[in-house]
């Protein structure tokens, strides 16, 4: 069986089994992606007849010259850089702590996981109260330390920080759970033999824990990065259907949303989507390349 040459019949047989998944993927993933690419190069497009006219890169040229899109790209990158490293480091720290205190572990695990299973919109509503400049808990805490209150949701300078804090917090749950799994899968014997060699806890962490959980760290980083590039819901809820005061919370997906649903400018929205696709693709490829040197499977 193993050394047999694969016949056409067998290939067909295999395809038959794969078909259900392939069909679903094609309809819901492949087709929309290709449609978006096509839509982004139409000069004119009628939404109702689904007919495009003229092909060219006018939409991309429009984005190139639109200051609002520049703002969106800049904010998106600030958001990704603000959220991804911080959420990975903080959740690893919490996972390490929970791993030490096994008695309270289950309780905190559930607690941290709650935001992940609750809808972003619902939690964001709660956070609009936490962020409230007059009655919010956050400003109350600042006041305890004699710091001036901050207009979290009203001051354009704080818009990105507001979004970043919320998103880090929201990401913690899943990251912590997966980090805990990874930490537990590192055989205890490695720590034992390292401690015999006199390794301090910090040396054990950097020499054993970090390299051995690197596949999980890599997975979570890519995951967090892709999710962060697509940030939208929290902005929508925090700023009541605007991109924040003075558009200070404009991100690529929000820009796309505004072009598509508010301005009905479908082709530009598609072009923005294509740009986002390329950005995420490049970032993922870069991470893949880097991971070859630092991730140990």
């Amino acid at each position, binding site marked *: 069986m193993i050394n047999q040459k694969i016949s056409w019949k067998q290939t067909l047989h295999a395809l038959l089994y794969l078909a259900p998944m392939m069909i679903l993927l094609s309809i819901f993933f492949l087709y929309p992606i290709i449609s978006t690419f096509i839509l982004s190069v139409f000069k004119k497009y009628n939404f109702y007849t689904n007919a495009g006219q003229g092909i060219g890169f006018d939409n991309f040229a429009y984005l190139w010259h639109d200051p609002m899109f520049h703002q969106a790209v800049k904010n998106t990158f600030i958001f990704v850089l603000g959220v991804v490293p911080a959420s990975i480091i903080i959740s690893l720290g919490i996972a390490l702590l929970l791993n030490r205190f096994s008695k309270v572990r289950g309780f905190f695990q559930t607690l941290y996981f709650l935001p992940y299973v609750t809808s972003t919109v619902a939690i964001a509503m709660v956070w609009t109260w936490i962020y409230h400049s007059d009655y919010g808990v956050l400003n109350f805490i600042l006041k305890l330390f004699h710091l001036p209150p901050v207009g979290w949701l009203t001051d354009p300078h704080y818009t990105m920080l507001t979004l970043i804090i919320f998103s880090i917090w929201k990401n913690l749950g899943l990251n912590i759970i997966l980090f805990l799994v990874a930490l537990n899968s590192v055989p205890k014997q490695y720590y034992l033999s390292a401690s015999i060699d*006199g390794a301090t806890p910090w040396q054990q962490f950097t020499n054993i824990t970090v390299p051995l959980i690197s596949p999980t760290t890599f997975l979570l980083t890519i995951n967090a990065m892709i999710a962060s590039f697509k940030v939208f819901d929290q902005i929508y809820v925090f700023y009541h259907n605007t991109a924040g005061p003075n558009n200070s919370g404009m991100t690529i997906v929000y820009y796309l949303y505004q072009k598509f649903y508010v301005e009905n400018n479908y082709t530009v929205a598609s072009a923005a989507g294509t740009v986002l696709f390329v950005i995420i693709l490049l970032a993922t490829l870069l991470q893949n390349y880097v991971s070859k040197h630092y991730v140990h499977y």
Partner: protein
Amino acid sequence: MQVRFSHISLAFTPDKDTLHDLNFTINDGELVCLLGPSGGGKSTTLNLISGLLVPTKGKVLFDNQDVTKMGPSERKIGMVFQNYSLYPHLTVENNIAFPLKIAHWKKADRLARAAKLAKLVHVEDQLQKNVNELSGGQQQRVAIARALAKDPNILLLDEPLSNLDARLRMEMREEIRRIQQETKITTVFVTHDQSEAMHISDSVMVLHNAQIQQYSKPNELYDHPANQFVASFIGDNPLNTFDRSLLDDTELKEELGEVYDKATTVGVRAENIVLTKSEDTYQHGVRCKLLKSHRYGLISTRLYSFKGIELDATGLTEIHDINEEVEIYFQKRGFFLFDASGNNLFLE
């Protein structure tokens, strides 16, 4: 470095001692095996030497210096684990050099030391490989090299050969012996395999029931076992044991003399049952009936029936029929009498 245990006890639970009042000395440069069945306290004793465990009572002394309160790294020990515990993300070279990296050695120095050790354990051509690409025996060698990296006072090996196949096990036990003799490092080796212990060690410590059953040269264990446990644990064939009273009406009783009355149990090694009497044997035999006979390559085994109990005999070459009654004789060196608490009465 000399290792001494002085009145060491260890209890994990208050009502039961895992180790009870252990006293022994391991001399500098010796290879000592801790031998015994699972749960006998071998690994616990090893961990007490390493400092991974702290005794409830008593003192651990290295060259007369009290190290009871010291941790493993202060005691300067090297340890090889049963599954080697090599770091999967590091190359052979970096695994061996790991303890030196922890000790902040310069990179060039630690790689030079790793290369030297790799030569000692014969893995010098594998240095750049990932440890997962090595065979079990090679991984074992790397683990030993790593344990030796910091030039430890004592090398501890916890069941190092149990993950290897039979042939490799024989090869590696000779290798461990060679490396030990080249480095002259005091070595403690835990095993449950008595033949492994007998082959490589200078001394063997048999541990069972939280206590040292016997601590002596390997051949002493076989020739002069301290008690019934050691007699049945050492040796390739199980020890035949039966109640003394079965010999009460034989002439063997008279031949054994006074000591016979103190005994409760008789033990005879299977390889010391013969069919002809000689100077080595007792002059009086017992009558038995042959029940079964088998041959496995070199070894032939027979099962005799003696007053309703069964006796295993190996090494017999004379052929006779099943169910035939014969006189069997016991060679003195494999015949023991034990008192009620299991002590070997011939030792007194």
